[in-house]
């Protein structure tokens, strides 16, 4: 029996992180996870909309929760920022009945929906470790990763209640997945550190120093590649890594891919992309 989840793609899988959109569906299908897209779901706000108006972000996300409840499903997403933001807003609404009632009034007036608080939000990483199981994951591997891979979680889902049964401050789910996929996990002390996504364009220097710290630690610890579980952090660690190296003076040159790419490649999807990744690893990965 496939496991059904309401799928939220995160904030940039439709634009600058299309590789996530490409790889998440085949990887999930291989593992028996049926992702049902929430076609009407908005951006989660990424903690940015709430800087303008806290109630606005809560209401937009309540609409997303209501859609998942209509399907009778939990929400799953491959983006740590989205998982963390949705979790936080879900918790806020659940813990404050008056607020929930007010938000529901707006939802009813504008969308004809209400939200009870019964859905859950989970990151795909936690579904794989806790529901699919690492044995089944290992059994699905056709192309073992074979590299030394460092994992980056970021801070958004590393909070009590949002990271499943993983440790908030010393997580190891991603390292266990890397191991199950045939890779050699490299555990970073900076694996839960922010890379400054919400302020990338305004506080670029600080954000890139944060990103450089993660990349250079991975490099120094012998990782040949870094994998991120966040579509937004992935973009910073990947696209901005040359600039991060220049600002920090650190060696930041390292292939960075998203978690769903690593899953899909190891399961035999997109073999040409895996070949290109191996080339990148051999050129700049060490």
């Amino acid at each position, binding site marked *: 029996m496939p496991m059904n989840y309401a799928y939220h793609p995160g904030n940039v899988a439709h*634009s600058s992180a299309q590789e996530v959109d490409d790889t998440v569906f085949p990887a999930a299908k291989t593992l028996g996870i049926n992702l049902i897209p929430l076609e009407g779901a908005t*951006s989660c706000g990424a903690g940015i*909309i709430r*800087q303008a108006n806290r109630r606005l972000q809560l209401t937009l996300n309540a609409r997303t929760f209501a859609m998942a409840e209509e399907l009778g499903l939990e929400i799953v997403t491959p983006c740590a920022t989205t998982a963390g933001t949705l979790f936080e807003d879900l918790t806020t609404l659940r813990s404050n009945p008056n607020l929930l009632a007010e938000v529901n009034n707006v939802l009813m007036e504008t969308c004809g929906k209400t939200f009870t608080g019964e859905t859950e939000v989970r990151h795909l990483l936690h579904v794989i470790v806790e529901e699919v199981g690492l044995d089944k994951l290992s059994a699905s591997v056709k192309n073992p990763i074979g590299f030394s891979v460092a994992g980056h979680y970021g*801070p958004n889902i590393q909070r009590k209640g949002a990271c499943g049964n993983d440790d908030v401050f010393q997580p190891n789910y991603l390292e266990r997945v890397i191991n199950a996929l045939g890779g050699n996990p490299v555990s970073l002390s900076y694996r839960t550190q922010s890379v400054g996504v919400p302020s990338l364009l305004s506080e670029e220097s600080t954000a890139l120093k*944060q990103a450089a710290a993660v990349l250079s630690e991975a490099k120094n610890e012998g990782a040949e590649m870094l994998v991120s579980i966040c579509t937004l952090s992935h973009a910073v660690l990947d696209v901005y890594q040359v600039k991060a190296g220049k600002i920090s003076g650190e060696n930041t040159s390292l292939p960075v891919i998203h978690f769903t790419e690593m899953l899909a490649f190891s399961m035999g999807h997109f073999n040409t992309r895996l070949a290109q990744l191996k080339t990148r690893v051999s050129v700049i990965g060490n």
Partner: protein
Amino acid sequence: MTDDVVSFLSDGDRSLHILFGSQSGNSEDLAVKFGKRAKSYGLESTVHDMDGFDIASLASMSRVLVICSTWGEGEQPDNAEELWNAANGDGAPSLSNTHFSVCALGDTSYELFCESGKEWDKRFEELGGTRLVDRVDCDVDYDAPSAIWTESVLAHMAAVDGNGTFQPELVESIIAEMEGSGESSVEGDDGFVIPVLESPEIQVKVRVFRYDPQSDERGHDEWACVLNGNISVLEVLRSIKSTEDGSLTFRDGSLHDPTTVICANGRPILPGITRIDSVISSNSDSNFLNLEPIVIGEVIRDLVTDLTISDIRRASTKPWFRGATRDGAKVRDAVIGTMSSDDAKKVHMVRDMISTVLVDSFSDTVPYNEAYISPSNVLSSWSRIIDPRVSKTSLTENLDLLSSDVGIKAETDLSSISRHGEMGETVADYMLDAKTRVLRNGAFQDGRHGKYVWWYTWSVKMSGKVNDTTIYRQVLGPLGLVGNLFSGVTARMVLGFTRTGGKMFNGLLGMVAPPAGVGKMPKQFNTPVLNHHEVVAIFNEVDGGF
């Protein structure tokens, strides 16, 4: 109890004198509670109101506890004023035979925190008294720290023999006897039975960061320990230092000493009030406890971090209160500005930080931006802004500070703070309030961050999705985009170094209107989400400004 300890605890003078200086009654309540608890340690307690207490009688007392609150801006409470003057007068006795300890009550929202207790602590020492246990400074939530202090101080006082001589070697025995005395509970104030908490022993590998500045060597030392789960991290460090390695360096102090912050398994903690069973992690082999210095300053040695930068940051923010008027409620020696209880509660909650160092160490930004004033100073400044008594000048200065490049906008990611439990959530919540106020004051046009928030939100209204192209163009402007062109950012997106073999063109737009839609460059326009009109309706209902 063993016969030896029983005999010791019942021999000779067993009197314990507890003096309270109290304005609102809290110190008095504590004194009575401590007095009851003292019986369990074989002590015969007498509680004294400082008002009317004869200073000369202190000289004959071998065990004295002082519990004193602070009133207003660092003043003695009313009932302590006379005794305080006497203690500082010519008739003050020598306390060479007196063993003492002080419990100070205060409020961190005042500049002079626990000042009265500190003064008594210092004065007893000056008069020749012997401090058996370091003073504890309690904030308004004083139950937990005062309770922990009580158990320690009563064990020490109990180890003063019937002739008034302290027998330090007996303290551990008394503590052990009390823990193993079979007492399953203690009697609470209202007849409640409060269970004595016990915790099983845990095998744990304690791994401690070491740094020797002379040789510039860094590394870790590891000890395999069997520890009771309810002992504090600070006690573990003290134990290692006293029994294993005397060179181990860490900040020691009272349980709530705000400067003692270290990292335990990745989380910043106050080691004096953190039980090891609340922070240890486990892997397949064992339990482990990694202790590291916090990263808000340079490491001086082992777990000690230079906190000078925190002082510099704080000093730069002019944190003191400046009122709009000198009018207010008249108290005995001063005039204090008034506000409603709701306002007072809000102001107090914002300033209610158990340790500014701890709060600052939550932030992932602080180690990378020395100019940033840090979360604790953001909150301090925010508390002045929401204080209805503040002067216009102070209000303007604090708003300007928070709006500046080193203010709230410098914090790159509040989620790095909010994940640190209840305290982290509270701190991030108030920082978000401050950020929204600052951004709205500048109409979202005051600097890049305001534009970023505006255009992010606006683009979500337009389609339900984030439009990266719009945000980049509007926030960075032409110069910023050219900068990205030369820094490698645009090249990496367009040329597809990072696409891992993905599509070169993301739709027709990529061919007719490059660079949008080429490589990883996002498209100019998003297809709207299903039922997009609902999104627009929510925006119009909740915030018509967008």
